């Protein structure tokens, strides 16, 4: 428990002079709990930050913490973030509400591929910017392509037609490869449709099954979360996810102070560190306070619907009742809480 390899080793942060750092280091063999106590006592001093880091280092798995421990961890984080970002940062710990199971529905017929959802998500969720850019939502462009007799001879081996061996030089018909980097002047383009993907908040999430330290788990309201502090960066979950929904902080995240969203949740958009995995949480910091996710609000065509799957009056339930709905890769039995639909 105490030998968790944490990437942002506090060595860099601790001041060199008087050695609280040394003290804590020497105390490395002490139990985590007594350390927590010590850290809590020390946090009033100027070196609060360094000590906070140490305490963070040794804190338990969020899911297993007592409320007291959670409060302590959160107070510590709030101090550190407030200090680091130069503004009052709050770290919320609102738990799942009884009787709520979050669901999401996306109208694939309406989506125009403008990527505002992806950018809204970054604004809201404090992802890394610039060279270390991380986006949780990807919008894939699907080309409609064409069926055309001229292409019939384009296959391999030559002159045997496109269907032979599936080895066509140029594919025909709807091209479902999904382009990520399309950059036309205007969207929607005439010959395309778009398919945004992000975390599907599976009911049986493969990522949760493979996590060796159980730092990623499913909350009672259906949101799959990550306790970043407990994440060891092994990236098994990234490999296991069939939807390519998880991202890894290969470097120290780059989150400019002025762009930082100070309203955070422990399991959501609080700043991450190098070496941890992150992903969509349905904007847990917003949705547990009653607000729509940022991507829902920003979608200019209203293609994104969100609500409580247990409430028949909710927008998602109405979609499920009225529209043609499908789940991505349903055959994998992951049971996503993210649905695609058409009018």
């Amino acid at each position, binding site marked *: 428990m105490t030998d968790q390899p944490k990437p942002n080793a506090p060595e860099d942060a601790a001041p060199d002079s008087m050695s609280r750092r040394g003290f804590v280091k020497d105390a490395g063999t002490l139990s985590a709990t007594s350390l927590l106590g010590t850290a809590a006592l020390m946090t009033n001093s100027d070196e609060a930050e360094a000590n906070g880091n140490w305490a963070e280092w040794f804190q338990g798995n969020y899911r297993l913490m007592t409320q007291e421990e959670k409060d302590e961890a959160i107070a510590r984080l709030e101090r550190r973030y407030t200090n680091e970002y130069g*503004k009052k940062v709050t770290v919320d710990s609102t738990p799942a509400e009884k009787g709520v199971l979050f669901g999401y529905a996306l109208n694939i017929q309406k989506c125009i591929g403008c*990527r505002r959802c*992806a950018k809204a998500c970054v*604004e809201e969720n404090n992802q890394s910017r610039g060279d270390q850019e991380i986006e949780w939502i990807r919008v894939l462009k699907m080309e409609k392509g064409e069926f055309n007799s001229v292409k019939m001879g384009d296959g391999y081996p030559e002159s045997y037609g496109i269907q032979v061996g599936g080895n066509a030089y140029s594919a025909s018909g709807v091209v479902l490869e999904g382009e990520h980097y399309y*950059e036309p002047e205007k969207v929607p383009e005439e010959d395309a449709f778009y398919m945004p993907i992000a975390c599907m908040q599976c009911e049986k999430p493969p990522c949760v099954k493979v996590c060796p330290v159980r730092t990623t788990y499913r909350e009672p309201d259906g949101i799959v979360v990550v306790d970043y502090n407990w994440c060891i960066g092994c990236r098994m979950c990234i490999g296991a996810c069939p939807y390519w929904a998880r991202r890894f902080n290969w470097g120290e995240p780059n989150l400019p102070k002025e762009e930082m969203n100070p309203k955070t949740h422990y399991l959501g958009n609080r700043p991450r560190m190098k070496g941890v995995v992150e992903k969509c949480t349905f904007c847990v910091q917003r949705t547990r306070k009653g*607000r*729509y996710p940022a991507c*829902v609000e920003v979608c200019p065509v*209203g293609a994104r619907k969100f609500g409580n799957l247990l409430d028949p009056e909710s927008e998602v339930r109405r979609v499920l009742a009225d529209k043609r709905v499908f789940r991505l890769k349903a055959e994998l039995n992951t049971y996503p809480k993210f649905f695609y639909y058409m009018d």
Partner: protein
Amino acid sequence: MQANKRVHADMIMKTGIRIAALCALGLGTMPAVQAADGECFESRDGASKVVQKEIGENLKNVECSDTTGAVLWWGDPYDGTQPMGDMPVEIEGEAVVKSRTAQLNLYPVCGVACHNGSFPAPVEADAPPRKLTMHMDLVPDSMNLQHGNGGIWCLDCHDAKTRNKLVDNAGNLVDFNQPQQLCGKCHGQVYRRWREGLHGKRIGEWAADGKKRWFVCTECHNPHDVQQGERKSGFAQITPEPAPKLPKNMDNADHERHHGH
């Protein structure tokens, strides 16, 4: 803002000469809302203007995209809204909308300056389309109105006398802030879906009985151009946000296009 405009309109009424001057100056061709720094549009480019401002400590009403001038994030979903007003069917929860009239350049003067009810003489509601000299910026080709495939024209929506009101097919005046009451008369099915929250969008609280800001029809659709010629689409194209960063050591995304075109 509303009040200011009303005062403005009163002033114009008092000075009759200015009326003519204003019309002649081509107030009618005033450009639609234009984007500037700290200003962004919501759904339909040109239909709305949101000015970015601080609404609390470290909180802005909106964040705007540097590249496209679109709203990227709502700090306060209810900023600048007003109660939706009458709905024929009761809605659970609180419903607010943004004023359309506050966004319409011509609204403050349209009922008094150029059309005061008796002058110029109102045309018959079922008069056939004719070439217009005004409003060419709003309605590029009046002979071929891009709504209704030739089946409808100006006075199917605008009242012949009371120009600052819309009119439905039963002759009821409809406020510009309640376009759904007009559109719904011809697009019943979509209107019902809109009321249920499936067509269009609402922001604010997700709970069925939560407080929501509803987007009204004209915030997304330009009533004068829901066909857009060849596009045959009710929603105008917009500029997309920039593509994500390419993975390290990848110079281009040509691999995505290996299938020709």
